[in-house]
């Protein structure tokens, strides 16, 4: 790493450090008491330090593999998101479309 000024993060391994704004502090549980310095600046997202998990999904590589099939048929207007969005409620209501939702444009 020549030519690079290496500064070591004081946050490494600190878990959740809390942001300065009070309203945000209320939204997250802190596993350890943040230092005043951490209070004043920023919060590192929990889980980002789990390197392997994030690295292995760090975008598409290239491959020389072939693919046998692709489903062009999945183009029905009935298709609605069915992933984990159904577990998330936003301040303006449910985040996901349900099967009974009739406001999907054809």
């Amino acid at each position, binding site marked *: 790493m020549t030519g690079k000024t290496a500064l070591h993060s004081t946050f490494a391994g600190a878990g959740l450090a809390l942001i300065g704004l009070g309203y945000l502090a209320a*939204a997250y549980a802190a596993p350890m008491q943040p230092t005043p310095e951490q209070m004043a600046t920023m919060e590192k*997202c929990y*889980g980002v330090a789990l390197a392997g998990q994030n690295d292995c999904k*760090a975008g598409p590589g290239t491959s020389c593999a072939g693919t046998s099939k692709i489903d062009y048929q999945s183009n029905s207007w009935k298709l609605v998101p069915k992933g984990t969005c159904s577990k998330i409620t936003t301040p303006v209501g*449910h985040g996901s479309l349900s099967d009974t939702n009739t406001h999907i444009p054809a």
Partner: protein
Amino acid sequence: MQLRSSQAAFADYLSSAPGLAVPASLESVIGGDARHIGSRLSIYKNNVLARLVDALKESFPAVHRLVGDEFFPYCALRFIAKEGLSRTSLVEYGREFPAFIAEFAPASTIGYLSDVARLEHLYLKAYHAAEASTGHIGSGAFALHPSAQLMSSPHQVSRIWELNRADTEFDHIELLPLREFLLIVRPFRLVEVRRVSIGTFAALVALDDGADHREARREALCAEPAIDFDRVFGALKAAGTFVLPQDSTTVGESK
């Protein structure tokens, strides 16, 4: 130039909508049983489209998890139909995907989806960005780390991203009406996503626009009068947000 004309016909076929007949100019150069030419060629067409869908899946794993295995390819194929095939790298191909999602009617009730996609694309940019070197800056100056990306969102987008990036299970959650300000940066080996305060964000945006330390402080105080800017700046420095000259102990200290 027979090769050129046959590759042009092949390229046209690969770029055309799925299900269209094989053009005669291409069919005439393919060998074997004429009845099977369409099936043989479709393998290549499938490969080209499937690789783009897969690339989007790998670039946007949280979006994929949020909408599920059926909806994601549907959305991706619509994007590909609008965007056309790739002109650059597979990582770059997803650049316009967040904007596409924002306009994509079937996803319109998931208001945060486009911002999650935007965060994922910035994460990738930070991941692949050049290493920091003091060559990026003039003497006595400092600059944002070359991997640094900034975004704000009216949603708790990093919270949603955290919960959906890995395959971890989570129970039902209720989001709060909070605006988020994010710094995405790769100071060392790992990409870090940091939630910052509005004043910190204002300072970072100013620095990104080429402002100096004094101007950044002014922006920070304007956005967040109560900010302790020196402490914020020191912590940003310690977290590897900036590229500093080797003898930079005094850079950025308040005057």
